[in-house]
């Protein structure tokens, strides 16, 4: 048993951090505030920067993900720029991850190297206007048409939709069979006739993420992810479980950024003749930031390790990590705002951006409510009477 990072992991973390703090972090504030029309190009540039340093797709090997690597790289990317993390993650870990885990050799070969080099950008489209936590309620349907499928439906909020070259799209292939066996993921290229991307959507936080809806109107598609239809729901659940590790990395990255600027401010800012950090009500907030962020990281790495090793309780550990870290970062940025007080509330301040960015974590990819339902059911079922 050893609960500390290895020297090698620590070095990897440091190298990644140094690069990102120099190359990505300085652009983050501008990204948040820039005219919306500039987002797409700025994100392409950031993804290319990551790719050139081999950071896009760290941890993706042929047909498996090393989630500890994914976590460590992810946390540092999120710390430098939360939007860039989400965009990179949708491209390489969700779209690319789906390909790595479930794709045919040919599908992998055609897309994964291109996604890792940012020559292509990927996206994953599953939720809809009326189907979020309850994914079985999606209305997108694929009908057989000879060798191909005709997909119709509308995906509501798709990260990377404005810039993606390839989409992994969830649809019912056999609606009467129900979600468990009646869903499939499709690989759909951007230029496929019938596929259209909506107007860019604007958001409260993570405003650098290119975001839009996706409409499929009799979109002709020949490629089911992995070749065989009917595995979509199970693949979706697996991706969401691994996704918990990614969102935990997002949270801890934002939490670290918040803790750093708050600590610096608490040292520099003076009131009543001393550093404000010397007042316990400020200093203890810094301490609590550290505690919750540190435990979020431990839970994220624990879940990553459990998933890497296919441990029995990996799904629950992943849910615990996502739930803990997302609620923790909400608290952390709130404390951060309190440390900065009036200065932090000004538009354009770093804490103001982090405050908005952090709020995404509790509502994305399985809200806190859904995670609690999952975790409590698991615990309650241990004592279910038959």
């Amino acid at each position, binding site marked *: 048993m050893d*609960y500390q990072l290895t020297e090698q992991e620590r070095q990897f973390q440091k190298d990644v951090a140094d690069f990102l703090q120099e190359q990505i972090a300085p652009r983050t504030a501008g990204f948040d505030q820039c005219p919306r029309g500039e987002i797409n190009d700025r994100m392409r540039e950031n993804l290319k920067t990551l790719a050139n340093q081999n950071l896009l797709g760290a941890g993706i090997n042929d047909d498996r993900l090393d989630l500890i690597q994914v976590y460590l790289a992810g946390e540092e990317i999120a710390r430098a720029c939360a939007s860039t993390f989400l965009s990179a993650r949708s491209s390489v870990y969700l779209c690319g991850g789906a390909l790595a885990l479930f794709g045919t050799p040919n599908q992998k070969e055609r897309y994964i190297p291109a996604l890792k080099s940012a020559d292509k950008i990927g996206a994953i489209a599953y939720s809809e206007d009326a189907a979020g936590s309850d994914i079985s309620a999606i209305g997108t349907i694929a009908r057989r048409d000879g060798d191909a499928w005709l997909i119709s439906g509308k995906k509501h909020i798709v990260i990377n939709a404005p810039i993606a070259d390839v989409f992994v799209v969830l649809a019912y292939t056999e609606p009467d069979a129900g979600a468990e066996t009646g869903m499939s993921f499709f690989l759909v290229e951007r230029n496929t006739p019938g596929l259209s991307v909506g107007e860019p959507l604007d958001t409260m936080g993570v405003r650098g993420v290119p975001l839009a809806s996706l409409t499929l109107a009799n979109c002709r598609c020949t490629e089911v992810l992995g070749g065989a239809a009917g595995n979509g729901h199970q693949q979706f659940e697996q991706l969401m479980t691994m996704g918990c590790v990614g969102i935990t990395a997002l949270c801890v990255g934002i939490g670290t950024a918040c803790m750093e600027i708050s600590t610096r401010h608490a040292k520099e800012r003076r009131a009543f003749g001393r550093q404000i950090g010397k007042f316990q009500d400020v200093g*203890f907030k810094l301490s609590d930031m*550290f505690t919750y962020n540190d435990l979020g990281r*431990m839970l994220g790495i*624990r879940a990553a390790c459990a998933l890497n090793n296919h441990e029995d309780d990996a799904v629950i550990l992943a849910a615990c990590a996502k739930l803990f870290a997302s609620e923790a970062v909400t608290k952390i940025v709130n404390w951060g705002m309190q440390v900065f007080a009036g200065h932090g509330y000004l538009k354009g301040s770093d804490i103001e951006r982090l405050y908005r960015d952090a709020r995404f974590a509790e509502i994305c990819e399985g809200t806190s409510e859904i995670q609690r339902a999952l975790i*409590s059911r698991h*615990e*309650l079922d241990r004592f279910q009477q038959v």
Partner: protein
Amino acid sequence: MDFSLTPEQKIFRDTVYRYGRDEIAPLCEEADLKGEFSFEIWNKLGEMGILGLPLPEELGGGGADIVTCCLAGEALGHAGVDGGSLLAWGAHTYLCACNIHDFGTEEQKRTYIPKLASGEWIGCMGLTEPGSGSDAASMRTTATKKGDRYILNGSKTFITNAPVADVFVVFANADRSKKHEGITAFIIEKDTPGLSTGKPFHKMGCRCSSTSEVFFEDCEVPQENVLGGEGGGWLIALSGVEWDRCTLLSPMLGAALCNLDLCARYANERHQFNRPIREFQAIQRRIADMKVFIEASRLAIYRVASSKDNGTMLNPLQAAVSKVYAGDVGFEMASEAVQVFGGYGFMHEYPVERNFRDSKLAAIGGGTSDIMRMIVSRIMLMQ
């Protein structure tokens, strides 16, 4: 990172859990309500080899590593063994016997360890004083050198096991001009003239551990009973912190596991409005939060333990995280467990009630949560 337990560790944990559940837990309710140290429980812990667990085998101990010690604490708490009995064990084994082992001379080890390891003798450690708690360096108990003896004067308070102890490891200042560098540890046997203990306190929780004041009135201690050399006491006191942040917290983690099991079972059995209360989200929320707490505090506690096993220097930030989280959130979770049981949870006969009272100690004993936050914020502001 490697979070895995060895097969031996897993078997050990399960064995201790079953033993605790079958042999000890049934005794705890009555002992807790009496508020007295239970020699019956003590002897059961001794029979299982728990009392000398980390001490070397050649001195009668179990030769276990720290992670294994934490597993024992976790398993016993999980089994429903009360926090007081486990606190008595912690004070005896980690704070008294381990300090003698780690800092004592060969002679001291030979004299004290075997009897402490078997539980024949009960040990305690005296650091806190009426006027010095978190600020331990300000202690007023003095040790004045007189020939080959030290004369101790002063008093200690909140000393776990003092009323039943045979061996006391106590701290006194041998040279107050040197402040904390004058602090010296002594091993004192119970019949030493000038040493006396007060009446056991009535406590909110951990009631099976017996706690009292300790008085020194011209208490003469021979020089060979100095532990760790004159002025070496501060280091020994600080080393207690490492135990506090892992082995002494592991029973609290165990109690949370115990509560989670009790609540999950009850939520399946208890029906209101024609359905089991497990179907209400207000109950589900508490169950989920307990589980998250357990996983997070487990990581914090075993991180400290495994670092100690691996010879990594104690990271004060990691140690404080363990204490502050297990202490503060552990108490909140114990309160939620009472809430799941409603009126029944308020009754003595339900273990969630006792776990609630016991859990409050984790945020107080061995450095309060406030002190933990002070340590962390100071380090952050220095960096």
